[in-house]
């Protein structure tokens, strides 16, 4: 080292009035000269905060497609991370939703005219139920136990993931619905209300059973009920039936609210 920083340059640097070129030159020297570094007085807290800020910008995290998309939609980064981690958001689930909805839509049109549109109406409401069953719980989430003992409300976590699953399923369903040769009297609410009712019923049962088990019970019950109804010629998707699904959804919501503290611990609550 043949030169050191002179006092006047150092003084201007400390006061922040030195020009940028001289500052860059001085900093390059400081990086390699411990003697001169000792002369620069700085606030340790400020320095730590600055470094944390830099590290926060350059460190990994939030780089997935889902997180980036949610970020662009204005969702805070910590919420985006919670949603993106959902096991139900794996590519395999998204593909399954698209394929099953597509298959159901095609199958619905296969016997037109008159149409077998009910295939879609039976299958479509099941997809969010399956998605929720794979969104939360010990069997599907490897870090479930760590998640459970965190202070975040488990029901909130489950609802966040359920909302994500519903958003994906409903979007795909809306895209597929025009392909279904349903009578003009039936709107997309014909499958949307059952989907909401079944999903909320799954959540309600999850206060007592594992989510996957609750989902299986609801899906099984739905299939049996639909086979029975359709074989007897009952109309399961008309306006009256839809009012019934809305009522079921409301009842399930009330149960979820009443049981809100039973989602975050195993064992029978006393």
């Amino acid at each position, binding site marked *: 080292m043949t030169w050191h920083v002179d006092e006047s340059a150092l003084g201007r640097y400390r006061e922040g009035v030195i020009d940028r070129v001289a500052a860059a030159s001085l900093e390059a020297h400081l990086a390699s000269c411990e003697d001169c570094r000792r002369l620069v007085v700085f606030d340790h807290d400020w320095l730590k905060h600055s470094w*944390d800020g830099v*590290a926060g910008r350059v460190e*990994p*995290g939030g780089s997935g497609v889902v997180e980036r998309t949610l970020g662009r939609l204005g969702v805070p980064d910590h919420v985006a991370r919670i949603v993106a981690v959902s096991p139900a958001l794996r590519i395999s689930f998204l593909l399954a939703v698209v394929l099953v909805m597509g298959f159901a839509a095609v199958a619905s049109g296969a016997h037109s005219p008159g149409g077998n549109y009910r295939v879609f109406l039976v299958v479509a409401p099941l997809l969010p139920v399956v998605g929720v069953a794979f969104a939360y719980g010990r069997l599907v*989430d*490897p870090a479930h136990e760590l998640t459970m003992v965190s*202070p*975040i409300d488990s029901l909130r976590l489950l609802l966040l993931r359920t909302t994500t699953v519903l958003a994906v399923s409903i979007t795909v369903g809306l895209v597929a619905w025009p392909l279904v040769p349903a009578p003009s009297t039936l709107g997309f609410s014909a499958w949307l209300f059952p989907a909401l009712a079944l999903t909320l019923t799954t959540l309600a049962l999850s206060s007592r059973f594992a989510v996957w088990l609750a989902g299986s019970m609801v899906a099984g019950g739905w299939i049996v009920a639909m086979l029975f109804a359709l074989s007897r010629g009952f109309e399961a998707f008309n306006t009256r039936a839809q009012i019934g699904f809305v009522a079921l959804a409301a009842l399930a919501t009330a149960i979820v609210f009443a049981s809100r503290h039973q989602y975050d611990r195993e*064992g029978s*609550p006393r």
Partner: protein
Amino acid sequence: MTVTLTEVRKVYGSVRALDGVSFRLETGITGLLGPNGAGKTTLLRCLATVLAPDTGHLDVLGLDPDRPDQRTEIRRQMGYLPQEPGFYRNFTCFDFVDYLAILKEHVDRTERHAEVRRVLELTGLADKSTTKIRKLSGGMRRRLALAQALLGSPRFLVLDEPTAGLDPELRFRFRELVTELAVDRVVLLSTHQTEDVSAICDRVIVLDSGRVRFDGTPARLADIAAGKVWLAAERPASARIFWRMASGQFRAVGRPPDGAEIIDPTIEDGYVMLVGAAALGTETEAA
């Protein structure tokens, strides 16, 4: 700062995992020993608020885990390392701990990242921040699980087999870290490593068949085998357990024959006497 259990019971079908467990933990490290199936993990899961006991009462840092609001507060003040923590294998170490930091209410990104770096540094994983979890060895994953337990400097640490799979150097480092932390925290450490208990625990609790069989200092646990550990040149017939050492002699624990070369017991010897007696249904002085 205390954690108290009073007559805690938990039954799975016909198995009594916990059968009236009572004790009080204070600042410092308490080791929890016991054979497989003794109820250690069930006990730790109850303390960690994962599992609700069937009956009995828990008081964790003055809070009642049966009350939802207080349960949340306990979780804010607790770090938990489960026996088999699961991981998102495609996450990097940093992302995994960062995710759990979010769940622990570290919302501010800059502060959260600083905290994640701190715990990764503490557990010697700073240089693995960007490594995918699927590429980590078992020991590194254990350290990663420990790192998440240390997020937010919890006042109560529940550690289930924290040193399983760690090499000796890392185990020493773990001891150093936990003893530093335990100065002003309650630490409950379940382990099969009696060396860890000897090295760092102020107190040891032995659980067997869901009951507390021993509660005292490691020295007192070792004392259970005082006068019952000896060296023998031949295979000892009266020993409860014995093994051949590198020297060729047999180290035996049990009822020594007359004139046996008695040696100082370790806590492992005391543990063998205690739990062995329970298993055989025979009396020991300590039981």
